[in-house]
């Protein structure tokens, strides 16, 4: 619609795209440099930040997104996978009008996020990565006022709010302060709020983090139901299983770049043919790595910390020889983990990192 014809022609889908981005780029201003800190006197090394920024440093800042092209069809359940700092939240921020892209364009539900932000907001529901309930209000008021912001009549908002509270099993907390909810209950309230105005496109940023297995499966059921109703869902997650189970299509991103985008089945088919064997060792890992490389059928070995990773062409057959090799190198094997070719192994081979 807004794209030049040449560009549009490269996207031909059975269903119309409800989200389309072109060359999205986001550069955050660089954090203040270390040198700006006071000098003189003994300096302690600053504590390592929990997530060191992984976005590429570019002049003038950190590129969190680097020419990202995505296209999500109407009614699709779309997953965004990526390690910490990959740019998932930034992507969702841009698509939900809360973050301004440095360059590039995005269309959501037929409106441009930059120039028609109000129209976009009217059609979307957003579940943030960290619960942000309105703490001045109690649980039910959170829903009722949200309904009012979206023009729902009081009666309709009340009816939907009660139904959602019931569905998320927090009816007994309807008049509680939000601070009295557990983390998981707050998360459920956030999802209920995002659904209250029945948006056409729903964004969920790691919605199942912090939910117990029961609540997680309840949410899965709900998401499947929304999907069956024809809503478009965009979800980020850290759980491969969840992505595999729910999503029609997955995008794997890292360093703000799209690494792969396809159905879970097709992605799994692309996974490297080897079985990944993780050995948790005690003792010096370096000599063990050397010896394991010599084991027949093992194509590659690397190590992070005390975990040695070997890729085997012959599945679990290599395990006895690997254990021997490690013991010869003076290490004890504490734990062994075997991963068949899967989304997980594809993810590791693409990003060089494990999720979580």
């Amino acid at each position, binding site marked *: 619609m807004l794209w030049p014809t040449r560009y549009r022609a490269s996207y031909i889908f059975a269903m119309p795209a409800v989200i389309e981005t072109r060359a999205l780029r986001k550069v*955050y201003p660089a954090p203040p440099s270390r040198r700006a800190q006071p000098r003189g006197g003994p300096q302690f090394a600053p504590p390592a930040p929990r997530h060191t920024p992984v976005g590429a440093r570019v002049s003038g800042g950190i590129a969190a997104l680097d020419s990202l092209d995505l296209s999500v069809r109407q009614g699709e359940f779309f997953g965004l996978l990526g390690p910490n700092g990959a740019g998932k939240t930034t992507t969702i*921020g841009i698509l*939900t*009008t*809360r*973050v*301004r892209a440095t360059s590039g364009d995005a269309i959501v539900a037929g409106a441009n996020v930059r120039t028609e*932000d*109000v*129209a976009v*907001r*009217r059609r*979307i529901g*957003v579940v*943030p990565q*960290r619960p*942000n*309930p*309105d*703490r*001045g*209000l109690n649980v039910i*008021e*959170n829903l009722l*006022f*949200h309904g*009012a*912001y*979206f*023009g*729902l*009549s009081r009666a*309709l908002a009340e009816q939907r709010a009660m139904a959602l509270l019931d569905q998320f099993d927090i009816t007994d907390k309807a008049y509680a302060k939000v601070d009295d909810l557990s983390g998981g209950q707050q998360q459920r309230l956030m999802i209920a*709020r995002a659904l209250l*105005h*029945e948006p056409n496109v729903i964004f969920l940023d790691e919605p199942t983090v912090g939910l117990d297995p029961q609540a997680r499966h309840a949410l899965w059921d709900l998401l499947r139901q929304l999907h069956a109703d024809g809503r478009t869902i965009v979800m980020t997650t850290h759980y491969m299983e969840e992505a595999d189970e729910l999503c029609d299509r997955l995008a794997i991103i890292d360093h703000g770049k799209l690494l792969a985008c396809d159905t879970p089945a097709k992605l799994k088919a692309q996974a490297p043919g080897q079985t990944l064997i993780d050995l948790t060792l005690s003792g010096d890992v370096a000599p063990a790595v050397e010896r394991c490389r010599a084991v027949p059928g093992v194509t590659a070995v690397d190590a992070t910390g005390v975990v040695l990773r070997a890729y085997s062409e012959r599945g679990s057959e290599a395990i006895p020889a690997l254990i021997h090799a490690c013991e010869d190198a003076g290490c004890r094997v504490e734990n062994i983990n075997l991963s068949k070719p899967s989304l997980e192994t594809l993810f590791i081979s693409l990003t060089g990192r494990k999720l979580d």
Partner: protein
Amino acid sequence: MAVSPLSTADVFFAMLRRDMRVARREAPFFLLRTAMQPLLLMIIFGYLLPKIGMLRGNYTATLLPGVLAMSLALSAVQSVALPMVAQFGFSKEIEDRLLAPIPSHLVALELVVAGTIQGVLAGLFVLPCGRLIMGPIPGLELSNFGQILGIMILGGAAFSALGLFIGCAINAQQIGLMFSSIISPMIFFGCTYYPWSSLDRVPFMKWAVLINPLVYVAEGMRGALTPTAPHMDLFVVSVALSVLLLIFWQLGRQAFLKRAIG
């Protein structure tokens, strides 16, 4: 669909209702925070000192409008600045409103309107308290209620716009510093305890304090409440407050949008 056609005004007033609901719930704490200081001042300077003979004459007529201006300004600033610091800083609870289908600068405008209302209400609370504490006040006129309210609204709006700017431009760790370095001097040099015309004897001060927005609110309250006492011309006061309101709104709006859209 069951969703009624949505106008921007509906969203705006829903947000205003939200702020009023929260304000009502927190009214006792809010009054304690903003009216305590003015009430204490009136007890000391308007009741105790005259009673024990250390202050003579009609000082209460000077004090009442000043203290009223002060509580109006304090509550207007705080009722916007403090929530902004918390909501942008850590709780992020403003995000639900930023995701509502309304232009973001109107969310900012709504906050200023809510702050103005709270400032005016604090002023209206302090006025009868002052009369109760200090007894009959010479020259007090309540007949020009329109003027009183007009000055209160203009002053409250200017200060809540200032609160928007402060709350969005300053990060959470500096909020205490801001109060001691900006708000306190503003109160002491704000012609709250003395009329502006009495600064004739300190000409430098007389012109320097004109950058202080509180001066105009205090003088405006004097003009409206005790018209026979010396005060700045109400027209000058209105123009000055309007100009300040525009400046603070521009600054506040920009600071808000900078925080709202990353």
